[in-house]
């Protein structure tokens, strides 16, 4: 086993060697500009792009002609939200989303609020689930877009895409989903789910960084977007810029591999995640699972270790790469806004760790991680005044603290 252990697959993934291999010729041999229409270099690049585009579109239940290639999910989300809001502004200026979306959805929505749009943030319950009833009630005559993520990047909770799609379709509003964490991990079908716009990115599925896509439905309904970048009129005018041919080819290869291995990988990764969770739970008291217990991404485990601060825990397990919901490193000192939205107390938010398992995670790595975490939590609890008070039976909510 090699150290350090990478368990942050929800942040990014290594590029699969098979993907890199597929990309290589497109740097040095087939290096043409896919928009060059008058020579072979361009034609070959275009052919590779179109083949990749078809695979991307078809894998999610659409077609290649509905794929707009972008630099990543952040750009896809921005284009979907800002582009649809602008194009349909005469129809209405109301958008519905949730408070636990990625910042690449929340921030464009808030930018629109500054420009006079109205945004409804749906409530989420303690597991991070929205209420379909509230969604339906929130739709107004001037609502143009509902943007709800497929799988949450921090807590792993999945949205009921099919049910959401039924509601948006019935009410004639567009449905955008940020499926960055879901595509490649769980089945996503834009037809069955009535998805009109879908964002995804290659680097979460063992593809290269800097490569993303936005699915834009072409019929029933035909979705139109105003561009947010102007130039050569690439991607049907929706996204100008020379196509990243090696990235596109790699993206398609990465998705193809995820698609072919999806069933077995989802099962294997879920088992690894559960193994880690069970071992932690067996050895430690006061631990809390964040996110939905079953309706969650196969590879995500998010746990709060009560009375232990997340950053100090990461420091004590420095040969394991995980991520913390505590934001002691940031200037704001605010813990994760996702955990806050779930109503999890700030104390437990500061105590949370996200584990993301992936294609290259082994059982041995999981066992090592469990041992290390258990040791570090116990050590830090011996040092924790909160744990001591809890052991003495003091209710921490009754203590007069001195926030700073």
């Amino acid at each position, binding site marked *: 086993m090699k150290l350090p252990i990478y368990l942050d697959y929800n942040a990014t993934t290594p590029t699969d060697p098979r993907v890199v291999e597929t990309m290589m010729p497109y740097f040095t041999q087939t290096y043409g500009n896919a928009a060059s229409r008058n020579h072979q270099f361009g034609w070959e690049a275009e052919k590779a792009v179109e083949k990749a585009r078809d695979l991307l579109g078809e894998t999610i239940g659409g077609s290649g002609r509905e794929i707009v290639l972008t630099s990543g999910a952040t750009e896809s989300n921005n284009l979907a939200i800002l582009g649809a809001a602008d194009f349909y502004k005469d129809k209405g200026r109301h958008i519905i989303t949730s408070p636990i979306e990625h910042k690449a959805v929340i921030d464009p929505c808030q930018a629109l609020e500054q420009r006079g749009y109205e945004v409804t943030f749906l409530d989420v319950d303690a597991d991070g689930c929205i209420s379909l009833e509230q969604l339906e009630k929130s739709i107004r005559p001037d609502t143009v877009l509902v943007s709800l993520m497929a799988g949450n990047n921090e807590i792993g909770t999945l949205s009921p895409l099919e049910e959401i799609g039924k509601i948006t379709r019935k009410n004639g509003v567009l449905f955008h989903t940020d499926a960055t964490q879901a595509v490649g991990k769980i089945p996503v079908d834009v037809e069955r789910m009535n998805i009109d716009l879908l964002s995804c990115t290659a680097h979460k599925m063992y593809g290269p960084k800097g490569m993303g896509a936005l699915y834009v439905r072409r019929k029933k309904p035909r979705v139109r977007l105003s561009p947010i970048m102007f130039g050569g009129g690439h991607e049907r005018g929706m996204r100008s810029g020379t196509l990243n041919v090696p990235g596109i080819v790699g993206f398609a290869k990465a998705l193809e591999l995820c698609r072919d291995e999806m069933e077995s990988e989802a099962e294997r990764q879920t088992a690894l995640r559960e193994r880690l969770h069970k071992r932690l739970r067996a050895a430690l008291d006061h631990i809390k699972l964040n996110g939905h217990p079953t309706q969650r991404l196969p590879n995500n485990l998010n746990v709060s270790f009560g*009375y*232990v*601060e997340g*950053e*100090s825990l990461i*420091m*004590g397990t420095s040969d394991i790469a995980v991520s913390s919901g*505590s*934001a*002691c*490193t*940031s*200037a704001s*000192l605010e*813990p994760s806004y996702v955990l806050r939205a779930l109503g999890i*107390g*700030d*104390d437990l938010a*500061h105590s949370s760790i996200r584990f993301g398992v992936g294609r290259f995670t082994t059982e041995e790595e999981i066992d090592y991680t469990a041992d290390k975490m258990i040791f570090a939590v116990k050590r830090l609890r*011996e*040092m*924790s*005044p*909160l*744990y*001591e008070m809890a052991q003495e039976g003091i209710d*921490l909510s009754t*203590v007069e*603290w*001195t*926030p*700073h």
Partner: protein
Amino acid sequence: MAYSEKVIDHYNDPRNVGSFTKNDDQVGTGLVGAPECGDVMKLQIKVEDEKIVDAKFKTFGCGSAIASSSLATEWVKGKTLDEALAIQNTEIVKELSLPPVKIHCSVLAEDAIKAAIKDYRKRQDIAIESPAA
């Protein structure tokens, strides 16, 4: 973020972790911070003739918070109460090479020292007053 060597040293080998009995008249306890802010420090001093003869701490917080409080217990030991009151958070920042985002950890450690001394002095007042009452 990279931690300084001294922070790592205190984190891996914290000095004076533990607790004294709270209702000992010789002991002063300072509990500062808040769980929702991500750091709580408990610093205790044992005093004999206005001199701190022992100190203990427990901290919930990041590595820098643990290191700041660990260092604070080292520094107060052997000092008179007035000397300990003079310890400034900037000295802790300097000793541990804390970056700007971690300065609040040193402030908290200074507050913890002051709160412990205040608690001790309050106890003395009560102890002196009660026999008379």
